[in-house]
């Protein structure tokens, strides 16, 4: 058989591609449940990390059940809504915020309780320099002071923008407040190296990672805005 005939080359390539394609499709489909489970556990770990609960993948599920006492869904005006069979955890905010119709988006909120103390965890999603960034911010019971935060990214520059997933950066948000009096001002991330000591609404960004840092500030401002009516109502109810 002449393996260098054109007809042979075409047949050979076609068969090879079909075989390889089928194998990969089969492998991807059969491994998908386990991969999804890993992503789910990681999400639980991230949510818990924003309230400073460390967990391993094995214990994430149990701890999540234990500490997250309530999951709330809001619409874009901050009104609570119920969707059949959909919990706040099922909402992938990175995808959800891409929905074109704003009034069709749902905004999840997780309520954490430990020893009678409640924290409110808001998932965030936005964009950095190269790709999506996301995170979770936890508020104290006053729904104003930040208790903790975690951020992560897909493809930010290592050593610069990618530092947003490091404790050094995340801890800077602790104790900052998003309301000035009763006015919503969010927390701004300013250019790296700025002196922000004593400023309740500004956080020092990462030097060399300005666009990513600004992205973090932008996603906080935009996303939290939706939660403001809910927060204000709850604050009033608490008084």
């Amino acid at each position, binding site marked *: 058989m002449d*393996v*260098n005939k054109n007809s*042979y*080359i075409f047949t*050979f*390539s076609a068969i*090879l*591609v079909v075989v*390889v394609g089928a*194998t*990969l499709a089969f*492998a*991807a489909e059969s*491994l998908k449940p*386990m*991969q999804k489970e*890993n*992503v789910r556990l*990681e999400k639980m770990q991230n949510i818990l990390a924003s309230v400073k609960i460390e967990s391993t*993948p094995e214990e994430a599920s149990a701890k999540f059940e234990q500490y997250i006492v309530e999951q709330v869904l809001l619409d874009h005006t901050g009104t609570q809504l119920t969707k059949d069979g959909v919990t706040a955890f099922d909402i992938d905010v990175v995808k959800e915020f891409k929905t074109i119709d704003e009034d069709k988006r749902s905004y999840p909120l997780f309520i954490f309780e430990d020893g009678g103390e409640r924290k409110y965890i808001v998932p965030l999603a936005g964009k950095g320099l190269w790709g999506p960034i996301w995170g979770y911010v936890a508020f104290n019971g006053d729904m104003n002071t930040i208790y903790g935060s975690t951020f992560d990214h897909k493809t930010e520059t290592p050593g610069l923008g990618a530092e947003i997933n490091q404790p050094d950066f995340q801890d800077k948000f602790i104790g900052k407040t998003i309301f000035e009096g009763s006015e919503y001002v969010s927390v701004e991330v300013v250019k790296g190296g700025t002196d922000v000591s004593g400023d309740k609404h500004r956080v020092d960004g990462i030097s060399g990672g300005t666009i990513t840092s600004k992205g973090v500030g932008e996603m906080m401002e935009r996303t939290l805005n939706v939660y403001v009516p809910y927060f204000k109502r709850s604050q009033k109810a608490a008084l």
Partner: protein
Amino acid sequence: MSETAEATAVVKEPREPLFSSKNKKLLSDPLNDDNPITIQVLGICSALAITVQVKQAVVMSLSVLVVMIGANLIVSLMRNLIPSRVRIIVQLVIVAALVILVDQVLKAYVYDVSKQLSVFVGLIITNCIIMGRLEAFALANKPWPSFLDAIGNAAGYGWILIAVAVVRELFGSGKFWGYQVIPDAVYDFGYFNNGLMILPPMALITVGIIIWIQRSKNTKLIEEN
């Protein structure tokens, strides 16, 4: 893979012995005299990128081992069927398919490691060692020698990677496999982790030092002018 090995084992009498001196050389040469990293200077990019921690280096070495064995065996079995005009593309398709498989398996079973390796698993496709062995060896040899050649070269790649990673993790973060090995007392005396060790340039220097030691020990490698 093991089936091929057994099949060859059953009918070994009339042929050359499984571990003839020639076959043994396939295994041992890449470890020293013909090391893919230190002698052929292939696969350097991943040696720099993935050697900050020992754990990553080990997972990367195992992944390369699996891909290399798979690719070498498949190409060797198909060597008489592959049209030479499209052989590079065929090799690439086979390697890429195997790499995607490895990536999917890592994501399913060792998720945290797969996150750390992220793009580097994908970059196994472009690891010059793999394509180099397919082109230079598997296309012209039977499956068994190709299998040995794959193990030899992956091991040669792996031991350098792990050696560099041990040095970098120990001096860069005072740890081994993620556990602290330099006691706190030493830090109290004013010892500091070397931050430069974490950065890629230090990997290059470490590889350089390994090459230096290797060349000074191994007389075969000393070039005469």
